[in-house]
């Protein structure tokens, strides 16, 4: 048995997940695992390290490290060198990005968060993949291969912010059920495809059209092949925006399987669940789309503010549309110790659903005073905006840096957790990091 080098998992993964998998688990990249899944022998090795088998490991994307491994005191892990997504759930896969890894202006594909509701398709043939447009309010039914989409319509690239509606859920009290997202279920990558609008117009939209609803090729966790995992959508007006894409490319390359390969919707500014993955069908509806997870309490909040823990009747819930104003501090990583009166940069991104971010402020005295940051314009509509400022801490001690963005309607982020809702959506509370100044 060859002895493995003592090196942090995080450090290895920083070199690139393919190299890490080869060195750590003896993974050999075959044509199949190019899609990014781990081989059974690699999983066994990982399971031994974790002290238990990786349940559902055959579908484990190679760029993800189980949380059990990341948090363990195992010698393979070097603290402070984490280059890893945090896994919240392995069946279905759900993983978020630590904020400091989102420092890039354009989010790299391998660190983009994963929010799956079911099992991604396993047999993917790009040349035969078809997208069908149909529905009560479609003039006709038409199908397109990916090659036909590429040749028949003009192609566009936009940087689009995708954020899970439940990002920040972990802070609600009483606790809301579901994946307990903290901060990193958000990213802004460069997506390339054709305009959803152009394809819908090619099919023909009847004047009574109200909504679109997508269908994907993922399968239900229960194994029932007739059961639709998730089928959501947006009102026609949102679907007709110029930035709404049917995309086959993320950051100039194939979309990772976990993020929707080979085809997906990308509709920025709204809960990411409207941007259907593994896209096979779009229905143009004459009413609000009624697919799974459009109804009940899914991706809905009360129509009026409620006290924490209130039982809200179903008819008093409304569908979440534009996401609220929010920001992240991506540098420095929380936990920074600053020697003396050194000035350091603080930076990150801010976004505001369908709106623009007009102002960005930070505070390092627990909200008593706020400093205005330098804020860039978005590269295109619905892309996050970058901000930065310089900070010098006045004396030795513990500080928190708080970030607060304000949107073009004058709404800003709350410092405490915003209005409670039954499923724990839309927590846009200020991001806080801890820093210390130590003098010699």
């Amino acid at each position, binding site marked *: 048995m060859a*002895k493995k080098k003592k090196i942090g998992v995080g450090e290895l993964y920083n070199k690139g997940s393919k190299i890490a998998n080869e060195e750590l688990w003896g993974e050999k990249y075959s044509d199949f695992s190019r899609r990014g899944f781990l081989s059974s022998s690699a999983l066994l090795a990982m399971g031994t390290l974790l*002290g238990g088998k990786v349940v559902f490991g055959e579908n484990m994307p190679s760029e993800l490290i189980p949380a059990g491994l990341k948090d363990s005191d195992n010698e393979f892990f070097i603290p402070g060198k984490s280059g890893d997504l945090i896994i919240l759930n392995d069946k279905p896969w759900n993983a978020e990005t630590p904020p400091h890894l989102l420092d890039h202006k354009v989010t790299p594909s391998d660190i983009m968060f994963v929010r799956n509701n079911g099992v991604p398709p396993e047999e993917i043939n790009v040349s035969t993949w078809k997208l069908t447009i149909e529905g009560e309010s479609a003039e006709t039914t038409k199908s397109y291969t990916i090659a036909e989409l590429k040749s028949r319509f003009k192609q566009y690239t936009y940087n689009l912010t995708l954020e899970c509606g439940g990002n920040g859920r972990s802070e609600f009290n*009483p606790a809301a059920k579901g994946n307990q997202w903290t901060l990193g279920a958000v990213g802004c990558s460069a997506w390339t495809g054709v305009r959803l609008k152009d394809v819908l117009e090619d099919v023909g939209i009847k004047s009574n059209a109200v909504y679109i609803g997508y269908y994907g090729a993922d399968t239900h966790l229960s194994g029932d092949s007739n059961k639709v995992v998730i089928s959501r959508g947006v009102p026609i007006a949102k679907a007709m925006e110029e930035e709404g894409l049917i995309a086959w490319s993320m950051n100039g390359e194939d979309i990772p399987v976990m993020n929707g390969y080979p085809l997906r919707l990308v509709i920025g500014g709204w809960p990411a669940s409207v941007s259907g993955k593994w896209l096979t069908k779009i229905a143009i509806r004459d009413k609000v789309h009624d697919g799974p997870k459009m109804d009940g309490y899914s991706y809905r909040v009360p129509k009026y503010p409620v006290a924490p823990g209130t039982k809200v009747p179903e008819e008093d819930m409304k569908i979440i549309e534009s996401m609220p104003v929010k920001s992240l501090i991506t540098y420095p990583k929380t936990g920074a110790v600053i020697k003396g009166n050194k000035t350091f940069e603080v930076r990150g991104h801010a976004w505001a659903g369908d709106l623009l971010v007009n102002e960005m402020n930070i505070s390092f005295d627990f909200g008593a005073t706020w400093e205005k940051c330098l804020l860039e314009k978005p590269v295109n509509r619905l892309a996050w905006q970058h901000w930065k400022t310089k900070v010098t801490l006045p004396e030795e001690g513990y500080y928190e840096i708080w970030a607060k963005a304000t949107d073009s309607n004058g709404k800003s982020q709350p410092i405490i957790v915003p209005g409670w809702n039954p499923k724990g959506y839309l927590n846009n509370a200020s991001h806080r990091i801890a820093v210390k100044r130590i003098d010699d």
Partner: protein
Amino acid sequence: MSEYSPENIKYAKGVVKYFNRLLALIGVLIIFIITQLVNPDFLKPQSEVEFTQLVEEVDAENLIENGIHVSSGLIVDEGYELVMNTCSGCHSLKLVTQNKGNKADWKEVIVWMQETQKLWDLGPTEGPIIAYLAKNYGQSKKGRRMNLENIEWYELE
């Protein structure tokens, strides 16, 4: 009696002889320990190494540490095996351990899974499952915003 009496010289020689043997023994031990550190399987035949790994894997499935059943992540308490066997069929147990709720909250989740996710009627196991969940994964009192915790401090370059 003189310091250099024949008895004393004989005794001293004996001490030196035993001391040398002890040194040799320590030397052998050190070499053995180093060998073990470099390759713990040095003395074992290959098949035994593989067998040991298998046993370790089976043991890992049943390992309990600090009251946690390690491979499932569940708190060990009456009913945890029932929860493990019932819930892990369809979804990760991480979905259980990261959530909190009282009996009514957990009942609500079970009903939702039955209505929409093809969960079967749990019959007589429902009571013990809900009791286990509400006891071990109950609502915790927390404020409107928690302190920042588990910070790994590092020097900013």
